[in-house]
């Protein structure tokens, strides 16, 4: 019964393809923006230099991506931390 009712009401809501098309449009805006690899590599080097002052990090597994959601582009950096540097620990005590 409930299934029948939801199906009855779904018919009046717009189809999901409009959602698909809009999400696709947004994701392609970002994909096609194409931030140059050189720029990303420079940013990566700077990030490594700064973060390394505080953490020992796995430089090889570091990942930087641009993420699009809700009309915004976010810079997402995944930096695997191996351990906190001793000097930093001391300073915080």
């Amino acid at each position, binding site marked *: 019964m409930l299934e029948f009712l939801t199906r009855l009401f779904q018919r009046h809501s*717009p*189809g*999901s*393809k*409009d959602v*698909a*098309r809009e*999400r*696709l*449009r947004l*994701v*392609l805006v970002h*994909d*096609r923006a194409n931030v140059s690899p050189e720029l990303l590599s420079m940013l990566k080097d700077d990030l490594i230099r700064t973060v390394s002052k505080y953490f020992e990090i796995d430089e090889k597994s570091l990942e930087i991506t641009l993420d699009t959601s809700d009309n915004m582009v976010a810079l997402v950096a995944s930096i695997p931390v191996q351990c906190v540097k001793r000097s930093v620990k001391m300073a915080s005590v």
Partner: protein
Amino acid sequence: MGEVIVITSGKGGVGKTTATANIGAGLALRGYKVALVDADIGLRNLDVVLGLENRIVYDLVDVAHGHCRLKQALIKDKRFEGLHLLPAAQTKDKTAVKPEQMKEICLQLKEEFDYVIIDCPAGIEQGFRNAIAGAEKAIVVTTPEVSAVRDADRVIGLLEAADLREPKLVINRLRPKMVRQGDMMNIDDIIDILAVDLLGVIPEDEQIIVTTNRGEAVVLDDRSRSGEAFRNVTRRIMGEPVPLMELERNGNLFTRLRKIIGLG
């Protein structure tokens, strides 16, 4: 001199191998000499889709490394006059062949065959680079899903950067009923977004599973919708202008009734 066409998609599982097998068989049915090349080294599948898995002796890597002559590695399909398969290696990895070697193999093949069709692996790395190295034209396969169309867009960009301009699009596994209900992107939505020419639309069809189970080509099946769609794609590749087929033959009971009373 033949023509080298690569069939690619970016995303896996959209039907590249099925499309390669059926377009190849379709062209062979029309009397052309066709060589199908499985460029998916390490994950070969075109052989099983075509039902030729028990006849492999040599493969693409053997040819590239000079372990055998090209002719020795080509498997002749006994059901279709003119259809040949160059299988991928299963035990090596995709770095076993270099783009220059693929180019050379394609050059040799197109001297002998009217059409050389390359089944590209999923992804955009080395295997993709190899598969497109010797190609002159490209067909991009996608399905009406956000992920598949997004990957198709990326691949179209990479193809154009590699000087494979104006790739043609095949939309696979379209469900006319869902499109009508507004729950699946339609042909225009996809073409608008990708801005490429349409080569064909293949409706979702259970018969593909049946024929693939048997190692046969659906393009031979006169009664199946996907077979008809693949025959149309084949004719368009040959240069014939063929209109898109009506995706919902007869429609449902309601639209049929409307037609009968002259409303539709």
